[in-house]
């Protein structure tokens, strides 16, 4: 299959299987993009998420653009993004007339309450996979714990954590080099 078409179709699949925010997309990206297509490594995925956190726009789109760009330049980046937003465009446009009734249906509420219980387990599994490429020594473990706790209990933008962590990384490496 031509790579450009493959990008659209793969990200279409990722988009249609993502329920909730950009984080719910992570398990699907690991399966489709890292394991099936080998378009990125776990390490690159965690990098893209980090950059997606502190650049404009939603993480799902930022990650799609990154991976598409890496495969096939600017056009690849655009087409991967088209793929990831296409399911929303189709589904919301079809449902728009009845959409508020749809969200109120008891059966829909029941289904999504079930989905939420599953999504957090999938995110937990995704974090375990990322762990190996991200938490490699004591300083990185400390950063992980601080950011997890900080973002749970302090109401600031993720940008703050991302910027501080990058600075911390540079300082730690400098200090280690001096030793």
């Amino acid at each position, binding site marked *: 299959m031509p790579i450009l078409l493959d990008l659209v179709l793969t990200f279409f699949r990722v988009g249609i299987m993502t329920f909730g925010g950009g984080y719910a997309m992570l398990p699907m990206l690991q399966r489709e993009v890292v394991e099936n297509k080998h378009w990125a490594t776990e390490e690159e995925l*965690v990098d893209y998420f980090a950059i997606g956190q502190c650049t404009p*726009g*939603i993480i799902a789109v930022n990650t799609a653009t990154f991976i598409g760009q890496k495969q096939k330049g600017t056009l690849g980046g655009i087409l991967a993004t088209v793929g990831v937003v296409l399911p929303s465009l189709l589904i919301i446009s079809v449902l728009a007339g009845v959409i508020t009734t749809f969200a109120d249906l008891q059966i829909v509420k029941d289904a999504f309450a079930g989905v939420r*219980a599953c999504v957090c387990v999938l995110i937990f599994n*995704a974090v375990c996979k990322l762990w190996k490429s991200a938490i490699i020594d004591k300083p990185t473990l400390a950063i992980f714990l601080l950011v997890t706790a900080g*973002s749970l209990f302090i109401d600031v*933008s993720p940008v703050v954590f991302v910027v501080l962590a990058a600075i911390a990384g540079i300082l730690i490496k400098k200090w280690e080099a001096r030793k």
Partner: protein
Amino acid sequence: MIYLRLFYEFFKTGLFAIGGGLATLPFLSKMSETTGWFTKSQLADMIAVSESTPGPMGVNMATYVGFVTGGIPGAVVATAGLVAPSIIVILIVAAFLKAFKDNPYVASGFYGLRPASTGLIAAAGIGVIGIALFGAGHTVTLANAAQLISWKAVILMAVMVVLTRFVPKVKDLHPIVFILIAAAAGMIFHFAG
């Protein structure tokens, strides 16, 4: 020219909303005031809808507002406006990273970024656990936790942990399989109460 205006308003949202889907909320709330395209209560409905349809939430919201305001062309234009800043910025960042990938500062910056990014994802996951177990919009304390907790969700979560991590062959299934099982379980056992 409604389409131009839609593109412009969502371009602004895409440019200034940094982070996950909910980061677009304050901008949409402002947009409801300045444009009158939708009301605050429609916005609340939209959030519920975005959460119960596939796709990233920010994109769902843009599509819905665009559709309500200008039909299918409106939906396309609003979504294009929302994603345009991402595409532009990421293409620039990607070129920058390619040029500087061997720079030691970039490498050690990522050394610190990776655990932070993983931590943010873990925290988001913990947030979802809270909503899945206790429902949205409650303040959970030690005193009311036992009453609010959904035991059905606890059991489903435990089953999912076992299925996705410990059962040979089953654990290698595509994640969407587990989502569909969970949706079915939710419908059969009336998870929403």
